[in-house]
């Protein structure tokens, strides 16, 4: 009966093939219960079509769409963040770089105390070192001036004999260091660095000089335009200042 019922059902809803229809019609002609089953199935289908209508509550639709819109908002936010991530990262990088540049500009071309200490104790990177003959002091100062773009106007003094010139960079600040020997054989160091100011700890200002102690030695600094001179040696500050005056005067 099950197979026949499948055929009858298909016949009742019009999905039977022509062969199946012919078979059902033959069975219905031969067996009254088949004909009745067809009618009953048709009744059942008709009852469903006529009686089964349900009104869906509008508030449920509103709830469904609220949830859909909520998901939509979340998805769009995620998409936006994903799409904008490279841009946001780029903007962040630019902001960091910009802040760095701004910070550098705000600080001007000034060296910090640690940088100065590094410079005066040989911590800065030296790219070139050149020995200087004792009797070629004038050439040493000429080289010093050229290295600093013509900003240095110092002249040789008889009590200091140059023996070495070093050139290098402290961060992005080019510098030139001249090492002298004084008449007693002690080393005096003169550094010209491209910086319009230096930070020195516990410094004292006298005239154009800023004076500080560095590694047990007195250091005097003065600025000429965009170049700062630092002079150290085994002297007190008055001697160093006098030496500085002499160097500057002979240069002029």
């Amino acid at each position: 009966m099950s197979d026949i019922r499948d055929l009858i059902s298909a016949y009742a809803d019009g999905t039977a093939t022509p062969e199946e229809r012919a078979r059902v019609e033959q069975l219905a002609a031969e067996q009254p219960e088949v004909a009745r089953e067809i009618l009953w199935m048709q009744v059942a289908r008709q009852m469903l079509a006529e009686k089964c209508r349900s009104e869906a509550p509008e508030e449920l639709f509103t709830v469904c769409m609220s949830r859909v819109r909520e998901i939509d908002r979340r998805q769009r936010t995620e998409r936006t963040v994903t799409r904008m991530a490279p841009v946001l990262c780029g903007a962040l990088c630019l902001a960091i770089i910009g802040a760095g540049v701004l910070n550098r500009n705000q600080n001007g071309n000034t060296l910090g105390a640690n940088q100065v200490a590094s410079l005066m104790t040989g911590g800065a990177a030296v790219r070139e070192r050149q020995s200087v003959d004792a009797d070629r002091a004038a050439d040493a100062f000429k080289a010093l001036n050229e290295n600093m773009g013509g900003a240095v106007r110092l002249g040789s003094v008889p009590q200091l004999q140059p023996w070495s010139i070093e050139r290098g960079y402290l961060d992005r600040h080019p510098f030139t260091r001249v090492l002298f020997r004084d008449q007693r054989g002690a080393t005096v160091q003169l550094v010209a660095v491209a910086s319009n100011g230096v930070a020195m700890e516990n410094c004292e200002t006298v005239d154009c000089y800023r004076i500080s102690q560095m590694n047990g030695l007195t250091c005097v600094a003065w600025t000429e335009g965009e170049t700062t001179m630092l002079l150290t040696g085994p002297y007190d500050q008055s001697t160093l200042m006098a030496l500085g005056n002499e160097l500057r005067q002979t240069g002029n």
Partner: protein
Amino acid sequence: MRFGRSSSSADRYEREFRAIYSALYGTALRMTRDPDRAADLVQEASVRGYEAFDKFDGRNFKAWMLRIMTNLYINQYRRNYRTGGQVSLEDEHVEEAAAPPAEIPDMQLFSEMLEEEVENALGDVPDSFRQAVILADIEGLSYDEIAAIVDAPVGTVRSRIARGRAHLRQSLERYAVERGYIKKSFSDE
């Protein structure tokens, strides 16, 4: 009805959903036989449908949503809500409907049956048969569409529909006798 900011995808989904909403709810109601569970089922299906909307091939939204909802029903609701004593999904556990009554049905008498009585008669049909009958005779889906929705071969769908209609006929007949629409002797034979 608009909710929040405009979005083409959500707008399109809302339009499609609106068109099939009543059918979806009606099917959910007849599958679960409980308005609250039907509402939960429709709501969950609407969310699942939207989450997968970009995978919709654009051909038959109603069948696509019914499949989502049917899968949800199978996977969640029946496991959670249906308990022992209910009819199993497996076809072989369902008794065959009895042979038709000796008399032919009187359509005029049946037309007096109330909607509730027909719904109750439908509710008496075993689950998998009822589901197939709902999709075929109320929602008007083809056997192929139903086969895709319930994930079963077309032959199985056809058999389920046939057996479901036979059970429905039997339930209708019982209701009709109880209400006096037809004589008791019809169903006794």
